[in-house]
């Protein structure tokens, strides 16, 4: 217990003194997971909406695939993204391995199915009669989409939170494609693994607490948006 107390004190110290390395690590965590979540929203929301509304052959299979993707193990994503980005791999010429961009790609692959799947569920739970009624009232397709997404905004924001949470909490893929390079690709999760490996448990606890605090703040802001106008 004393160790945890030490960790709490140290994390406060790191924050109050504005330790530049820790601040950099924290900023990179937010940046990488933020961008990855943003991209997964750009892809996941339209895709999920489309899959909720469209009827096409093999739809059940595609939906099952997306739902499986919601539980993609980060290490598996890390391994495959690494192989793609290797110098000898198909995307090797881009020289992206061990950069923040590689981490964004990996976290995008983790978050996109989560956002797609939750969007799909959110839009699909709106009764189909509602849709028919809107169309009967003369709504255009664009108007219909807007109304549907607005109706589904509560679960959609939950999708944003789940996507962001999947990214920022993940360590396996970031370690593999980022390499945990000091000052370049070290984020809160990988730094925690490193400090634990070094036996600096108090610093590891401090970093974990920082990660928890940030995740809380982001989710608190999103929840505030979500619950504001009920």
């Amino acid at each position, binding site marked *: 217990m004393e160790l945890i107390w030490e960790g709490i004190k140290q994390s406060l110290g790191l924050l109050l003194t504005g330790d530049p390395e820790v601040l950099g690590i924290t900023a990179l965590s937010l940046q990488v997971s933020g961008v990855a979540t*943003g991209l997964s929203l750009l892809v996941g929301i339209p895709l999920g909406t489309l899959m909720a509304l469209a009827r096409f052959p093999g739809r059940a299979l595609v939906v099952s695939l997306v739902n499986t993707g919601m539980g993609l193990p980060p290490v598996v994503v890390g391994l495959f993204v690494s192989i793609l980005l290797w110098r000898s791999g198909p995307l090797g010429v881009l020289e*992206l391995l061990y950069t923040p961009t590689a981490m964004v790609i990996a976290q995008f692959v983790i978050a996109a199915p989560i956002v797609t799947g939750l969007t799909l569920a959110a839009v699909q739970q709106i009764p189909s009669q509602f849709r028919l009624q809107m169309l009967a009232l003369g709504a255009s397709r664009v108007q219909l989409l807007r109304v549907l997404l607005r109706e589904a905004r509560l679960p959609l924001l939950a999708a944003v939170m789940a996507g962001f949470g999947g990214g920022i909490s993940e360590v396996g893929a970031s370690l593999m494609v980022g390499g945990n390079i000091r000052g370049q690709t070290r984020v809160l999760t990988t730094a925690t693994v490193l400090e634990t490996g070094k*036996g600096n448990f108090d610093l590891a606890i401090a970093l974990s607490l920082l990660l928890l605090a940030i995740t809380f703040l982001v989710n608190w802001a999103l929840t505030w948006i979500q619950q504001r106008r009920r």
Partner: protein
Amino acid sequence: MRGLRLGLLLLGLLLSLLAAAPAAADRSAVILATTTSTQDSGLLDVLVPLFEKKGGYTVKTIAVGTGQSLALGARGEADVVLVHAPTLEREYLAKGTLVNRRLVMHNDFVLVGPPDDPAGIKGGKAAAAAFGKIAERGSRFVSRGDNSGTHSKERALWKAAGIAPKGGWYVESGQGMGATLTIASEKGAYTLTDRASYLAFKKRIRLAVLLEGDTPLLNIYHVMEVNPARHPKVNAAGGKAFADFMVSPEAQAVIRTFGVEKYGEPLFFPDAGKPEPGSER
């Protein structure tokens, strides 16, 4: 519609973050694949900035363990490797995927275990004999089991003892040295560790050094460059520059004193240009 506009605003914000993401391709970047012990001890945190200041290169240190470091180097996914498994290293040299192997430094492995020493290895001198006793008594032993340099050394010692370790007493952690020491401590087991990791964890674990100083326990680090003839994409100049730096008087002087302040004793002994210590297994 306010919710939607807010969402769009957030998206715009995120995209501007993307634009701010650091530029990727960097021609002067050197990828160093190395063992976790050099990173966990903090040595590279001192040496790498020193090298970067001198030569116009930036270093991407990938600390993954000796087995994976050698494999990455052999595939041309790294430019230079710093590892500690002489037997494995020679295999790669023979295949020609890695070249220009140079001695950098050494420290040593120690055999640690529960202070009450159930297998009675304390006082012995030969590591292989101690391994024999542990197996004979069936005392618990935690192996790294991860093809790291330490694991490679451990296997060599079992071989020297004429034992194929197997059974309930032989536990494979599959994790780094820190985690393995913690597991050994919790389980009251023996394990083989490099001295630097042991010193870093000493305070937190209930394990004592029971055997040290045997010649096969030397832990020898070499630097090797990836053969550019095999992999034209590697940063050969950068890899060579880093290897040259590691054996330079400047880096060797840093190695000589590193750790003295924190642990009261050096963690590594510089060896550049010397014959391999301990007359080579």
